[in-house]
């Protein structure tokens, strides 16, 4: 709300105050952890005994593991029960290397991370075909396999495990327990810093998009497979690093450690801290550490407690301790009137005069497309053309093939015969992702708006693949990465301006009204270089006023040169908006032409419009009865 309002009421003092508050807040997510890190590193100076130093190392190991759960479950939405398997891999790789003459903290942690990444990749592969519980169960199988694998793989001690793992070394120098703690905490801090940079970037936004919907991810041209693999590998790396630290600290690795209860404990830890948070993992890791430390008295009840945490987490979706922290920050932000992290900094440099900028629409040609499902012929030799700078309406009753046609154009279904081309270039029938990359953009009948994103982020997410920034660059925040993020924000704002949502740029997107969510989806189609915009029932469920606004936006976009394809029930709206209309019935185009012609076409009238409605009345008069729209 108030990006505009806060700018308007700005006496010099309040502006200054705002700037200071903003700068502080901007760095707060980094400053806090840095202070905590410094504090931990100072602990040996104030005199911490060996026992507590060991506890802190273990906690660091658990925080890494929980952090990995947050990546795969919290951000990518896959419950990886096999996380404990990756933890075991890290522990065994680290423990074996240390025991066999390669005892170096940096080397072994890196080796463990590499091995963990590999196992994460392998265990994630079935996730490319399946998801949800099937993937969870498949990854759970890893836990069962651990004892067998320790028997099969030679040199890792079978049932007995690896014991007497030597004290860690750092470039040849043997580490004291205090020094090892410093190294462990430094590794954790590096990971958390990198994780934060990753998750606060466009990659984090894209993962939230994936968590919400695979269809949406593909529809903006991003690779679902690739992103899923990134999530699995990203979750496995910290778990394996944690495993290596764990092996040194305990000086022992055995198969009995890595059981189902530990798998559940990791997930419970993630929930307690907040699954979609970066620093919440610290709280989760502390819980695991506390439980393992209080073995005798608490262990008995720990399983019940984990179960309760999972249940509460599943029913209440509370966001864990991290959400409490976030609420405090939000309150502070409101109190100091800082609208958002980026906006006040970049806003001034934003040129919104590009409202009138041309949109390079492309010519869409559907020729002779047929598609049947079993015995049902959904589309029979459909041909149509949509020109840039025009709104092309496709109407027809339920079952007429509209949605099938839209899905063929969007690449969801390959046509059985015929073709779809853009500016004369044939589109391959290899899925929505390829079509999206060739410039087809679409909206969904019920808008798909990822949770946990602000409006501008929803729009910006569509640029993820088109202008890609490597993960390495993102984590290091190179100039290119930062420039891309500024571009994302600037373009998202300009796009929101275009669809009339500029004032809601920072609002949590899922709280927007249906009308606004529809407009947001339209914005999402525009932020990419998309030559064709497909609107799937864009007016359904909207009231008169919302439809009016939507129509205004669509007209402006058309005038700017966009190719807009409107797939609609709502005949009066299409007649009012479209430059050319195709009427589908039983999978065939029964009539086409300018609205005036189509609505007076006897075939159209007799087939389903009802004679009384259209024969005598002029086009602009609202239709009292809406036989098609009422099917909604």
């Amino acid at each position: 709300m108030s990006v505009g309002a806060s700018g308007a009421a700005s006496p010099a003092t309040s502006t200054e105050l705002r700037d200071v508050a903003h700068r502080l807040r901007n760095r707060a997510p980094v400053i806090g952890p840095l202070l905590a890190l410094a504090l931990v590193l100072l602990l040996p100076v104030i005199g911490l005994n060996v026992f507590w130093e060991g506890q802190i190392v273990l906690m660091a190991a658990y925080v890494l593991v929980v952090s990995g759960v947050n990546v795969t479950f919290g951000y990518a939405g896959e419950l990886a029960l096999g996380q404990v398997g990756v933890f075991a891999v890290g522990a065994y790789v680290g423990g074996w290397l240390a025991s066999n003459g390669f005892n170096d903290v940096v080397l072994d942690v890196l080796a463990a991370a590499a091995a963990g990444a590999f196992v994460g990749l392998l265990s994630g592969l079935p996730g490319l075909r399946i998801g949800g519980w099937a993937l969870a169960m498949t990854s759970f199988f890893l836990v069962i396999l651990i004892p067998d694998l320790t028997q099969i793989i030679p040199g890792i001690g079978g049932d007995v495990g690896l014991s007497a793992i030597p004290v860690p070394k750092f470039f040849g120098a043997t580490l004291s327990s205090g020094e090892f703690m410093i190294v462990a905490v430094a590794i954790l801090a590096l990971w958390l810093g990198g994780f934060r940079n990753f998750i606060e970037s466009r990659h984090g936004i894209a993962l939230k998009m994936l968590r919400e919907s695979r269809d949406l991810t593909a529809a903006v041209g991003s690779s679902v497979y690739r992103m899923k693999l990134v999530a699995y590998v990203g979750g496995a790396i910290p778990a394996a690093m944690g495993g290596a630290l764990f092996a040194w600290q305990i000086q022992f690795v055995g198969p009995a450690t890595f059981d189902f209860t530990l798998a559940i404990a990791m997930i419970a830890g993630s929930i307690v801290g907040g699954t979609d948070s970066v620093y919440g993992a610290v709280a989760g890791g502390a819980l695991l550490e506390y439980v393992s430390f209080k073995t005798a008295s608490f262990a008995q009840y720990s399983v019940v407690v984990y179960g309760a945490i999972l249940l509460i987490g599943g029913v209440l979706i509370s966001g864990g301790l991290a959400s409490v922290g976030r609420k405090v920050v939000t309150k502070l932000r409101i109190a100091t009137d800082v609208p958002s992290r980026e906006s006040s900094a970049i806003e001034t440099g934003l040129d919104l005069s590009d409202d009138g900028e041309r949109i390079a629409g492309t010519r869409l040609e559907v020729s002779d497309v047929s598609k049947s499902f079993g015995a049902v012929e959904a589309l029979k030799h459909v041909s149509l053309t949509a020109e840039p700078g025009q709104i092309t309406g496709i109407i027809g009753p339920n079952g007429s093939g509209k949605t099938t046609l839209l899905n063929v154009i969007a690449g969801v279904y390959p046509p059985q015969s015929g073709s779809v081309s853009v500016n004369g270039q044939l589109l391959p029938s290899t899925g929505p992702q390829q079509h999206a990359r060739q410039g087809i953009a679409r909206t969904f009948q019920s808008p798909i708006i990822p949770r946990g994103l602000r409006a501008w982020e929803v729009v910006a997410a569509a640029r993820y693949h088109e202008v890609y920034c490597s993960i390495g660059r993102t984590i290091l925040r190179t100039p290119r990465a930062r420039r891309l993020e500024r571009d994302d924000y600037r373009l998202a704002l300009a796009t929101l301006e275009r669809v009339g949502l500029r004032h809601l740029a920072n609002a949590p997107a899922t709280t927007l009204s249906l009308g606004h969510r529809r407009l947001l989806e339209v914005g999402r189609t525009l932020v990419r270089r998309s030559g064709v915009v497909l609107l799937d029932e864009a007016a359904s469920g909207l009231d008169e006023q919302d439809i009016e606004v939507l129509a205004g936006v669509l007209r402006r976009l058309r005038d700017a040169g966009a190719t807009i394809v409107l797939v609609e029930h709502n005949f009066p709206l299409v007649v009012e908006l479209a430059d050319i209309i195709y009427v589908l019935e039983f999978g065939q185009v029964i009539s086409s032409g300018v609205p005036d012609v189509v609505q007076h076409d006897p075939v159209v009238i007799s087939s389903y419009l009802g004679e009384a409605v259209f024969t005598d009345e002029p086009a602009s008069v609202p239709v009292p009865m809406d036989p098609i729209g009422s099917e909604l």
Partner: protein
Amino acid sequence: MTLLWSALSVGAIYALLAITLNLIYTSVGVFNFAQGAILTLGVYISYTGVADWHLPTWIAALVGGVACAVAGLVEARICLLPRALGRNELLTTVGVATLLAGGISLIWGENDRLVASPVSTRILTVFGGRVAPDQLLLIALAIVFAAGISLWYRFTLAGLASLAVAEDRDAARIRGINVLRKSIAAFVIGGAIAGFIGLAVGSQTYAYPELSSSLVLYAFVAFVLGGAGSLGGSLLGGLILGCVQQYSARYVSVNYSDLIVFGLLLTTLMVFPNGLFARTNVRTV
């Protein structure tokens, strides 16, 4: 043949649990991870009924069935709350499973309990193989439940209504079918069956708290092999799994048996996502 009997009886346990998983999945679209824990609860309660309360075998099995039906009811009430549906049902069902497993080890302790066979213990020789009556009982139960529930689906109005719910929840709702009640009923019936068979299962497996997670994992494999929506598939899937496990343990190595099962699971998921015997496509979410 003796090995085959033992493979089939182990497979029958997986099949029975997979049938209840399938029943719930078909009606509700939820994979109930807690089903293994509910079966384990049934094992312990029936065991206590026989060993401590000195109930007759069949009464103890019924008590187990009723207790697990109640567990299913409570679970359904929690997991089917509107806000718990979606991706969170994974969390809630795993949470219920963990709670139950934790509760079981608090009440009965960690030690294995020997569960008395509900039928005679005299070893029989059938088709040239030696087999215990309780093993035959498990195989018979699996066949009876798979056939019985399939017939119920096909020939009763309530069964058809359940299939309608599975096909399209919204359409079923519009036709006046109470979808929530059907879903809860599926949990309750699934729980009742799991509890009822507890005694027969326990006499083969012993009773111990970790039983729940390993049972649900293998039942999941049987469920995947047979395909969602097909009870006959779950039966065959369970029996095939039992054979693969037992024969590979005997002729390859005990250490490789689970790896081989894992390979079978992955292959099935990647190549035949609708199961080995699927004829129709079940809508996957």
